[in-house]
């Protein structure tokens, strides 16, 4: 399968890159793990492609003042193995390790993945649970949006034409926090039929804070604040898991109908929360 012809530019600076993508006509290539298969199937036929692979300064993971900053071009492998993330945000490293397969993780990037916003991608569940913020830049602007605002619909984010993801900011998970990403992977595609990210902080025996991010279930990842509320107001994990996804219209496909998918989301929420709780101290 052969992609259609396109013009290719590989800008050497961010400024150059942003100038090229102004207007949003040109397609941005990061790791290519979503875009290139679509181009080969000719489902995507961009006339012009801008490759961010040669833009310096987009590939870093560092921690300052309680915030981990992840450059958009960081590969999933880099996220998975980053000592900074393993120490300060193990949930994200754990999530990255469950994306696709080793070769995909070696090429795919965080910025590319979240900008593509596949409804069954893994990162979004963890990013919304982590209350991550996403820094977006264009030639003329720079802004930061909450992860829960960023993912708007299937393949739809708050990115405006001409904007790219610059960096993801994740608050450091305190050392007493427990977190976990639980995924039911599609056996063929490896995508999350459902994936649930959970974070828990305890205060004595009660749950002081709970965060739940769900992917794969609806048109986009979401934070389940109602279920979080149940836990934070003394409810059990079973109580919370039982209402996960209430009010959402679950996706349905050959592999999992809407009712099964909703059920899986709740089961995996319970599992993720239980594991997170056991990791919290």
């Amino acid at each position, binding site marked *: 399968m052969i992609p259609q012809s396109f013009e290719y530019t590989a800008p050497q600076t961010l400024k150059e890159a942003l100038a090229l993508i102004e207007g949003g006509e040109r*397609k941005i290539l990061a790791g290519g793990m*979503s*875009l290139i298969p*679509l*181009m080969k*199937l*000719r*489902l*995507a*036929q*961009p006339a012009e492609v801008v490759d961010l692979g040669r833009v310096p300064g987009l590939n870093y993971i560092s921690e300052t003042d309680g915030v981990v900053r992840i450059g958009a071009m960081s590969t999933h492998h880099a996220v998975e193995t980053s000592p900074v993330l393993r120490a300060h945000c193990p949930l994200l490293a754990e999530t990255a390790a469950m994306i696709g397969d080793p070769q995909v993780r070696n090429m795919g990037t965080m910025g590319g993945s979240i900008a*593509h*916003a596949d*409804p*069954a991608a893994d990162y979004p569940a963890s990013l919304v649970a982590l209350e991550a913020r996403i820094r977006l830049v264009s030639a003329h602007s720079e802004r930061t949006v909450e992860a829960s605002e960023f993912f708007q*619909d*299937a*393949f*739809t984010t708050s990115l405006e034409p001409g904007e790219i993801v610059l960096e993801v900011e994740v608050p450091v998970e305190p050392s007493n926090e427990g977190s976990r990403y639980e995924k039911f992977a*599609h056996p063929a*595609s490896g*995508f999350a039929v459902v994936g649930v990210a959970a974070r828990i902080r305890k205060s004595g025996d009660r749950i002081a804070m709970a965060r739940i991010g769900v992917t794969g279930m*609806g*048109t986009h990842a979401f934070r389940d604040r109602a279920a979080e509320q149940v836990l934070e107001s003394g409810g059990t994990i079973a109580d919370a898991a039982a209402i996960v996804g209430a009010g959402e*219209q679950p*996706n*349905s*496909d*050959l*592999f999992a109908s809407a009712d099964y998918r909703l059920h899986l989301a709740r089961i995996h929420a319970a599992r993720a929360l239980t594991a997170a709780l056991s990791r919290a101290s």
Partner: protein
Amino acid sequence: MKVSGSYVVPVPQERAYALLQDPAILTKCMPGCEGLDLIGENEYAMRMKMVLASVSGLFAGKVKISEANPPASFRLIVEGNGKIGFMKGEGLLTLSPSGDGTNVQYEGDVHVGGTIANVGQRLLDTTARMLIKRFFEKLASEAGQSERRLAAD
């Protein structure tokens, strides 16, 4: 693939029904629609450019309205053909009053073929629901605007 659901449009039933028959409104509301040209009674040729993330495709097709039973119900048939596949959607739309607005209930069947069916089944249901949602959201906003225009006149 079966689709069903309902949306509320903030205009009275007769008005909602009329809007749903108006090719200018349909053009604005159908995601990607670039124009409807009358080719027969209640039948239009359609040009559509679907863009969803990286996926894009040009479709040529038809929109047809049948079984018109104003202002209660009608059948909407949308067909499109393109290089990346083809689709045919057919649904019965039933209108009923809902407060100051109109509840539009739809129930139908969508058939998809070609590449998008062969490789996209994981996302067809999600996408179909999203496009229908966009249609009704746009319709609601257009309806709201048309109400304001009417009120201003």
